[in-house]
C-alpha cells in the first residue's frame, strides 16, 4: 500500500448468505420442490410440494462483461423479473418470475437486448471457458476469442433443444485446462519443447521448483554462458507447458508450436454411466484468429454427427461408447493415428482386452 494510513481491518465474512438476495419464491420453497418441466427452450417451470410455481428464464452472457452489460441485466431484472437474478455454473443468467404471464415479455426483452434465451435441456449451453490473455499470464491463445467464433456458429443450438442430451463445450487457453472436461473440449496443445531464454532464468526463476514441476523429469540444471540456467531434454519433453508459470523464460508459446486440440466425451454427471475424462480426437489444428475456422469445422462436424446419430439421453461419450470409436472416426471422417493410443501411465488399461469390436 502506498498510503501510510492505518489499513482497514477486513471483515472476514467469508461466503455471503444468499437468502437476502434470493428470489422470494425460491426462499419460501427452499428444499420443498416437487417436480419440474420446461415450457420451451430456455424456460424452466418448477412446482413446489405446497403448490407454488416458479418460472425461470435462462439467457446467455459472455461471462466476461463490462459494467454496461451487467447494469442492462439489472434493468431487465427490475422491469421484468422482480429484481432478482442468479448465474449458473456456465455463466448463464437466470431470471425467476412468479407467474407464467411474465415469461413472454421477459423472453422478448432479453432477446431484444441481444441475450439469447436457451441453454436448457438438450441444448448446447454456454461454452465454459477460461480467461485467456485478459487475465492469465500463460495462455497460448485467447480462449474467449475461440468461444466467440464458436458461439456465433452454435447460437441456434443454444436457443433450441434439438440435441440428444445436453452438450457441454469447454475451451481452455492452455493444456492446464482450467475449463475442465467437456462433451467437447477445445484446448491449446503445445507441440514443441520450450525454448529457454537463458538471460532471464537466473533472475526470475526458482530453479528447483521448475525442475520439480516437470511431469517427465525433462528439466536439468545447467550452466549456460557461465551462468546457472536450465536445459530441457527435448526427447523426453511432452510439451505440457507446466514449467512456464513458475519460470516464464521457458518460452513454450509460439505461433508455430501453439496448436489447438479437440477432445470429446468428458462427463461429470453420474447419470447412467460414471463420470469420464474427455478423449483426444484431433490435435494440430492451427491457432488461427480471429475466427479459428479449422476448429469450428471440426467441432460442428462432431456435434452434428452426434445430433444425427445419438439416441435420446445419450451424452456424447455414451453415444460413442455405444457405436464404437471406429464408427465415430468413420462418421466424422477424422483420422485415427498413433497419437490417439495412450502412452501415459496406466496406458495398458486403455487397451481393448476383449473381443468386443465393431465392424
Amino acid at each position, binding site marked *: 500500500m502506498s498510503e501510510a494510513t492505518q489499513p482497514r481491518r477486513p471483515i472476514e465474512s467469508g461466503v455471503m448468505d444468499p437468502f437476502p438476495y434470493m428470489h422470494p419464491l425460491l426462499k419460501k420453497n427452499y428444499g420443498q420442490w416437487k417436480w419440474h418441466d420446461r415450457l420451451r427452450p430456455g424456460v424452466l417451470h418448477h412446482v413446489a410440494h405446497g403448490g407454488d410455481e416458479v418460472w425461470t428464464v435462462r439467457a446467455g452472457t459472455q461471462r466476461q462483461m463490462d459494467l454496461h452489460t451487467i447494469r442492462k441485466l439489472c434493468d431487465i431484472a427490475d422491469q421484468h423479473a422482480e429484481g432478482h437474478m442468479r448465474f449458473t455454473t456456465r455463466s448463464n443468467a437466470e431470471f425467476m418470475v412468479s407467474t407464467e404471464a411474465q415469461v413472454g415479455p421477459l423472453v422478448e426483452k432479453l432477446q431484444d437486448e441481444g441475450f439469447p434465451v436457451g441453454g436448457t435441456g438438450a441444448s448446447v449451453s454456454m461454452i465454459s471457458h477460461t480467461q485467456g490473455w485478459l487475465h492469465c499470464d500463460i495462455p497460448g491463445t485467447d480462449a474467449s476469442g475461440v468461444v466467440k467464433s464458436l458461439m456465433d456458429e452454435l447460437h441456434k443450438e443454444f436457443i433450441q433443444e434439438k440435441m440428444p442430451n445436453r452438450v457441454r463445450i469447454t475451451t481452455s487457453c492452455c493444456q492446464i485446462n482450467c475449463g475442465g472436461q467437456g462433451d467437447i473440449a477445445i484446448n491449446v496443445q503445445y507441440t514443441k519443447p520450450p525454448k529457454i531464454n537463458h538471460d532471464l532464468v537466473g533472475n526470475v526463476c526458482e530453479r528447483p521448483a521448475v525442475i*520439480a514441476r516437470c*511431469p517427465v523429469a525433462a528439466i536439468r540444471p545447467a550452466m549456460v554462458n557461465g551462468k546457472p540456467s536450465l536445459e530441457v531434454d527435448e526427447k523426453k519433453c511432452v510439451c505440457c507447458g507446466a514449467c512456464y508459470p513458475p519460470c516464464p523464460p521457458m518460452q513454450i508459446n509460439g505461433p508455430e508450436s501453439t496448436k489447438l486440440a479437440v477432445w470429446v466425451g468428458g462427463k461429470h454427471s453420474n447419470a447412467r454411466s460414471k463420470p469420464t475424462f474427455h478423449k483426444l480426437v484431433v490435435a494440430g489444428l492451427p491457432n488461427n484468429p480471429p475466427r479459428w475456422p479449422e476448429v469450428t469445422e471440426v467441432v460442428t462436424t462432431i456435434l452434428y454427427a452426434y445430433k444425427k446419430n445419438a439416441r435420446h439421453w445419450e451424452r456424447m461419450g455414451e453415444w460413442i461408447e455405444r457405436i464404437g470409436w471406429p464408427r465415430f472416426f468413420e462418421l466424422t471422417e477424422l483420422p485415427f493415428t498413433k497419437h490417439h493410443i495412450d502412452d501415459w501411465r496406466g496406458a495398458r488399461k486403455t487397451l481393448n482386452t476383449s473381443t468386443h469390436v465393431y465392424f
Partner: protein
Amino acid sequence: MPDKFPESSEFHTLRIIPPAGLHYSTDLLRKMCDIWEKHGSGLIALHGQSGDIMLQGCSSENVQKAFDELNEIGFDLGGAGPALRTSMNCVGHARCEQSCYDEVRTHRTVINGFLDEMHRPALPYKFKFKFSGCPNDCVNAIHRADFAVIGTWRDDIQVDQQEVQNYVAKVGRKYMIDVVITHCPTRALSLNDDDTLEIDNKSCVRCMHCINVMTKALSPGKDRGAMVLIGGKRSLKVGDFLGSVIVPFMKLETDEDFEKLKDFCETVIDFFAENALEHERIGETIDRIGLANFLEGIGVEVDPNMVNHPRTSSYARMDDWDQEVEKWRARKAEAASASEAAE
C-alpha cells in the same frame, strides 16, 4: 510478459466470493458495479471457473480501496495460491427437486469454518471444495474439487406408478425400454407387463437417470444426505484425477451433523497440510501413499463402496489378515448393538 502487454503488471484481478448459489438482487449487483467503476477497469467475470467474482483489471494502488468498499457491502476475498479456494454449490434446495441436502448451509458452514486457510495461504497446495445436491453434479464437483460433497439417498426411490403408466402411454413401450430400462447401469429397472416399474432398490446405484427422465413419476428417496469424494483435479504432473468415494453417506440435517462434517473437513485438511508434498494436490497424496493408508490417516474405516472391486493382484502382504478380520467383526458387533440400543 510485460513487453507484450505493457500494462499487465498493473492489471490485477480481485477474486471475490459471491453469495452461495450465485443469487443476486439487482441492488447488490449495482453496488458492486459502482465500486468497480470507481476503482477498477469495469471488467467483471461472472463467474470464474472456481466460482469467484473476478474483477479484472485494477492498479496496485486501487486494489485495497476496491476491496475495502466491497467488503463493507458484504463481500469477502476469495482464495488464491496454495490455499483453500473459493467454492461453489449448485442451485439445489433453492430451485431443484432433486436436491438431497441443504447446499447453502453446508457450503457456508465448511468454507466459513476455514477462512484462515483461504486468507493466509499455508497449505502444500490449492484445496477446493464443491457442493452438488445430487449425483447430476451440476457444479462438476467430482472432477473439479479436491473435496466434493454430493447429495444422495439411502432408502427407496419414490414412485408414482400412475405417472409411470402415463409416461409409457405417452412415449410407447419400445421407447421406454430403449431409453429408460436399458440405460439403468445396474439393470435395477424392470418394466412390468402392465407398464408399471419394478425397481430393485438394493441394486440401484442412485445414478439419477430414471428420475431425470420421469421427473413427475420418480423422486429420490426420503432418507437423504450426502457423500464425500476426495481427490479430483486436473492433469498437472500425474494426469487427471476424479474424486473417489471416501464417505459413502452422511446425514446433513441436525447441528450435530454439521459439526461432524466440519470436524471431518478439519481432519482432512490437517492431514493434507501435514502429509502432502509441496505443490501436491490431495489426490496425488492418496495416489502416492495408497487409499488404505490415507483412510487410516484420517480415521475412516474401509468400505466396499470405495472401490470398483477388490484387488485382482495377489502381490500383497497379508500377514495380519486375522487382525483385520477382527477389526471388521468388532465394527459389525458394535453396529449391531448400537442399532439394538436404538430400538
